[in-house]
């Protein structure tokens, strides 16, 4: 069995076990593990000699950090002022329906998609904006959003064959 803590240990070492660098450490850890698993946060707290509650507090304060596993594909829909005015709520609701997400659920049961509603993506000129796996789609409509999701589903199905 490979040591599941080894990547976290390496990241800590790269940051000199400096508790002042907790946020960059958590960012790297999230890149590595796709989210912040409980045992890894506990490990980090023990190694940095800070309380696990403090690490948990930081991890839950910033929207960037996820404490539950995320799906394979990340969909971000902007609900900032400009996007909201341009109808992003319709897009969000359509995506939720499309992915069959219940209230309070961000990730599909098959762990394929995670929907994140974010406050501003800095692309207000393109409002409303949706980002699928780091590709920005401007002036999105509910229909276009469904199209994009369908194309990802199709390519996943192809890969599975």
């Amino acid at each position, binding site marked *: 069995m490979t040591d599941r803590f080894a990547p976290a240990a390496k990241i800590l070492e790269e940051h000199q076990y400096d508790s002042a660098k907790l946020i960059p450490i958590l960012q790297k850890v999230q890149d590595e593990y796709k989210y912040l698993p409980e045992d890894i946060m*506990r490990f980090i707290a*023990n190694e940095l000699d800070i*309380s696990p509650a403090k*690490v*948990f*507090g930081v991890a839950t304060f910033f929207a960037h950090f996820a404490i539950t596993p995320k799906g394979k594909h990340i969909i971000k829909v902007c609900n900032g002022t400009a996007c909201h005015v341009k109808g992003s709520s319709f897009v969000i609701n359509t995506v939720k329906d499309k992915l069959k997400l219940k209230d309070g659920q961000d990730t599909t049961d098959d762990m394929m998609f995670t929907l994140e509603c974010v406050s501003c993506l800095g692309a207000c000129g393109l409002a409303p904006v949706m980002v699928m796996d780091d590709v920005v789609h401007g002036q999105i409509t509910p229909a276009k959003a469904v199209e994009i999701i369908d194309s990802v589903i199709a390519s996943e199905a192809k890969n599975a064959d």
Partner: protein
Amino acid sequence: MEKEQFVTIEGKRVPIEGEKNLLELVRKANFNIMTFCYHPELAAYGACRLCLVEVEGMGIVASCTVKPKDGMKVRVNSDEIRHLRRINLELLLSSGNHDCTLCSKSNNCKLQKLAKDMDVTEIRFKSKKLDSHKDATSPALVRDHSKCILCGNCVRICNEVQGIGAIDFAFRGFRSKIATAFNKELGQSHECVSCGQCARVCPTGALMPNSSEIEDVFKAINDPKKKVAVHIAPAVRVGLGEMFGLPQGQNVDGKIATALRMLGFDYVYDTAFAADLTIVEEATEFLERFKKGVNLPQFTSCCPAWVNYVEKFAPEFIPNLSTARSPMQMMGPILKADYEDKGGKREDLVVVAVMPCSAKKSEAKRGEFYVNDNPDTDYVVTTVGLARMIKEAGIDFVNLENEWFDMPFGTKTGAGVIFGASGGVMEAALRYALAELDPANARSVKFSSLRESKVFKEKTVEIGDIKIRTAVVSGLKNARKLLDDIKAGKDHYDFIEVMSCQGGCVAGAGQPQFDGWAPRQKRAEGLYQEDTELAYKSQDNSGVLALYGRILDKVGGPLAHKLLHTHYYDRKDRTGQQK
């Protein structure tokens, strides 16, 4: 000589005499502005915004975070400040559950008092009302997030004073809450040691000692098949009176004995009896270790939160903990053994302990303190919990006559009584040890250094060429520092007393709520006063001596070990560490 420095508060000159912040000066000027997040024992935080004042040239500031400077002109009650303070209070009241009539904290709640003082009768801000959600998974403490105003006192005392950090702020905005690591219920928190100091500094009913056992105690009293014995810890007698308006630190043991009988308890005993027993076993254990030079320093083990701390955070010191049980956990098995000795059945005797402490509740639930599913201590009630029982029964406590504890488990010496104050256990142990080693001179040794109002104290006793170095520490962060120094070889001691609460059990979470040092000192003085009226050392407790003849055989012997000693577990979190 330096010029005296002044701040002018509402037109009155107030000298600066080392106050850390403007709020302290304002209070010195008899403007007793009530606050939530400012606590004299903790770092200033500036969150509750109720200490707002207007400083000329600075505008409106939170006085708890401003350093007093010579010549400052301060307004406390301008229209604008009054207006802002009221808005801030209304905002605090606008969310959450503030149903005072259904809250155990009612009458002792700072939020309730302030709302009443400011005559808030209406809240203009409508917000989603939180439903009461109680987390009663910990035997020691109950949390109710719907009553939390996020002042952060609990977070700071757990971090700053106890050095643990079992709880912290988590989430953000409206979802902000005080959470354990990974938002577990408190009973599942790995870090919490149950000391309850968080509850001591909580201004509302959001964090309180778990009082669920009171119902069970009333039921047991009214069960004709059961006999119910109760014993009260030393610190309870100097704490309870405050709940009935009596002076702080007044010893009300006689009234307590009367009240306990009126409540229907069959046997009314004194935990100080078992404290003498603890000293006999623990000091004997120490003298053996000292002679052999093994497992030194010996640490006291009567504080259950300290035991939790060692098990969870410093298991390398487990061999140094005294194996002698705490007085509470000696009293239980002794009472049950005595009941069986007289032909009764163990499970027909219910033992109730009245303790100044929340951690004692979790101590009683430890698996090693059960015999065939029957606990050595059935229920633990706090000092405040006992006050509630007395009030519920309608007993006029203040006007009660004094009665005495039942024999033989009501006999005690002064050594047993001073257990309730930091330094008391060490003094009691040294009284015992000196009498064993050097009976001729034992009484001439004075222990004034161990009675000071300090969180770290030392005492070295010399008998011929033997030197016993002892230390007393209270507050877990202070204890941690001492452990680190010992590990680093900077300090050497033979015997160390540790109490989790600064000042010892008189300052426990089960006691009436208080701030600052003066109350601890008054309560401790109450105990040292009783000490002067009693026999000096634990060897003089005739009841304890008789017990060894009747049930226990010899001091430190096999039977004493079975009933009076315990063992500890390494519970350190080692997530991710290579085995």
